[in-house]
């Protein structure tokens, strides 16, 4: 299937296009597969990304590059093999031209290769595994979100700039956890006095927090996504450490998917982020207001990425008259795409991962008393990932 079928498909597609003529083709909707985690405990993440994505489509009037869009949703249940099955369905039966939505790296690694082999574009709204940023980089693979390590690298720069001498690192014991801590260590010049990996999904951190207190570091850099982050931050606050040993993290540990549940406990923590809720540029203000009006809650940077992905696709397709069928043109259009990104400076690097700005944000209460990521200062302008040199993109 990997070798012969795509050619057959491509031939059929070309023949069909020739017969139908380009006018009829332009009338066909663009088909997008949105594969994400919608059920079970991880279901919140998929919903957040989908909400951002659909808000983006609402802003473009339900079109991309002037063509109608059909979004086919699928639930990967956070299981790679289930994701693979649904991705196969999207590519083969629904004939999606773009596969997007995936939130977990392991699912993306399971689905990207077969989708790319079958001729679809894979545009990530969230997961940014190092494999596709480096040696496995692919002409039809784009990450409109971030590379996993980059926000940690930014926080390492910030911690060094602040003159924090002793840092204590904590993350779950899985590849993304190791990537995030590795990213931090890549740019941090102070001493790492502790590096602790806990079980994925751990509930109680009292034991680790006690060990941490005994080490008396100047700061704690942590990466705990989802429920783990809520557990850790609440327990850290209850242990009375927040005021004496400040918390630092990538935005993924401290965004609107978890901040409402953390509440007061998170206020005062610092995050490195590529977008913040109080960003005061016009596109961000509109996005924030629209999101709140439609969904009744504040958006996270993840929702902003998903929204941005739509804007990038729309701008790229507009520049080529909506002809997504011309893969080479579409690839080139995306590579050089210019759009009003919520993140200010945004462009794709040679490996199709973003070059973007990273900001320091502090968790603070907004006018309504809700904790938000509040922008403080620019940490790194036009930050690129560390894997691009390993990428031999044609």
């Amino acid at each position: 299937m990997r070798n012969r079928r795509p050619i057959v498909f491509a031939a059929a597609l070309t023949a069909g296009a020739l017969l139908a003529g380009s006018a009829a083709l332009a009338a066909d909707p663009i088909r997008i597969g949105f594969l994400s985690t919608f059920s079970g405990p991880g279901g919140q993440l998929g919903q957040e990304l989908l909400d951002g994505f659909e808000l983006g489509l609402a802003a473009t009037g339900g079109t991309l590059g002037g063509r109608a869009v059909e979004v086919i949703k699928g639930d990967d249940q956070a299981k790679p093999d289930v994701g693979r099955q649904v991705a196969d369905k999207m590519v083969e039966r629904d004939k999606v031209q773009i596969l997007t939505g995936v939130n977990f790296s392991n699912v993306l690694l399971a689905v990207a290769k077969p989708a790319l082999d079958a001729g679809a574009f894979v545009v990530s709204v969230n997961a940014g595994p190092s494999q596709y940023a480096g040696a496995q980089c692919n002409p039809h693979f784009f990450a409109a979100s971030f590379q996993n390590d980059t926000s940690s690298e930014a926080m390492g720069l910030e911690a060094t700039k602040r003159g924090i001498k002793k840092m204590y690192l904590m993350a779950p014991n899985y590849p993304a956890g190791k990537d995030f801590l590795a990213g931090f260590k890549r740019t941090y010049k102070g001493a790492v006095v502790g590096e602790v990996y806990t079980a994925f999904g751990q509930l109680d951190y009292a034991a680790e927090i006690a060990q941490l207190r005994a080490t008396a570091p100047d700061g704690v850099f942590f990466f705990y996504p989802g429920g783990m982050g809520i557990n850790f931050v609440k327990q850290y606050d209850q242990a009375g450490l927040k005021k004496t040993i400040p918390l630092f993290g990538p935005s993924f540990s401290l965004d609107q998917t978890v901040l409402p549940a953390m509440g007061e406990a998170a206020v005062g923590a610092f995050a490195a982020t590529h977008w913040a809720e109080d960003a005061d540029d016009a596109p961000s203000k509109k996005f924030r207001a629209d999101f709140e009006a439609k969904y009744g809650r504040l958006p996270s940077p993840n929702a902003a990425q998903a929204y941005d992905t739509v804007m990038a696709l729309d701008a790229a397709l507009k520049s080529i008259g909506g002809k997504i069928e011309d893969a080479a043109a579409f690839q080139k259009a995306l590579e050089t795409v210019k759009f009003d990104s919520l993140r200010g400076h945004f462009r794709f690097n040679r490996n199709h991962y973003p070059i973007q700005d990273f900001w320091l944000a502090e968790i603070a209460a907004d006018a309504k008393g809700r904790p938000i990521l509040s922008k403080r200062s620019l940490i790194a302008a036009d930050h690129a990932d560390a894997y691009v040199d390993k990428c031999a993109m044609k």
Partner: protein
Amino acid sequence: MTFALFAEQLLNGIQFGVTLFLMASGLTLVFGIMNFINLAHGSLYMAGAFLAAAVQAATGSFLLGVLVAIPATAALGAALEFGLFRRFYARNHLDQVLVTFGVVLMANEATRLIFGPVPLRMPLPEALAGSIEIVPGLVYPTFRLVVLAVGLAVAGLLWLVVMKTRLGMWVRAGSSNRAIASAMGVDVGLVFAGLFAFGAGLAGLAGLMAGPILAVQVGMGEPILILALVVTVIGGIGSIRGAFAAALLVGLVDTFGRVMLPPALGSMAIFLLMALILAFKPKGLFPVHG
């Protein structure tokens, strides 16, 4: 490890163990007496946390949340028992596992449908939010001490009821010999429903006490259910005493395993413990059924 640190880790282990005991006691009672494996026990824990958080969000009172959530979870448990689970007491364990697994799936999705995908917030009242210096050099979160005290109080109460009352006598008889129990002429259906509701109330209590410490989110019941099942089995199914001993053992092994072993071994420490214990004592530390 200094003495203060050791003492703190000891407290952590006991406190974690006591929380597990609250879950495991209900599980082991239902398991031992009705011979019913209830995977939905974790869903009742989740219900306790969500109900308490919702009431607190609506009224601003933590205490009101507690007072509503416990009876409400008990009532939910009674409804499940009466509506569905009692049909399964006479069925094999596999059918029980499956039907309660189906209920777990439904409970999780229904909770997401009702409360939305974002985890709920459950702040502590001012008086419980900080930490106390127990002895110089040993600072401990106030709320964790409360959890510890409540857990020990419930354990003591259960011990009194089981050892000193008529109901307890029946329960002891019931868990070791079901035929004698029903021959004692008690309204079995009513007692079963009552027991189930009681276990559900304890799960609700465990859930709402976890609320301020852990994330109140969909699926929060399953990780704790697994640990509670481990405790139940290590202790010996049906044995309250066994559940208490096993809960403390698991709490301590987990806490010290995490800080003293490499991460990969630390995460499987309690499973290693369970496999070891069952290899030598196939019916747990305090076997009930001959």
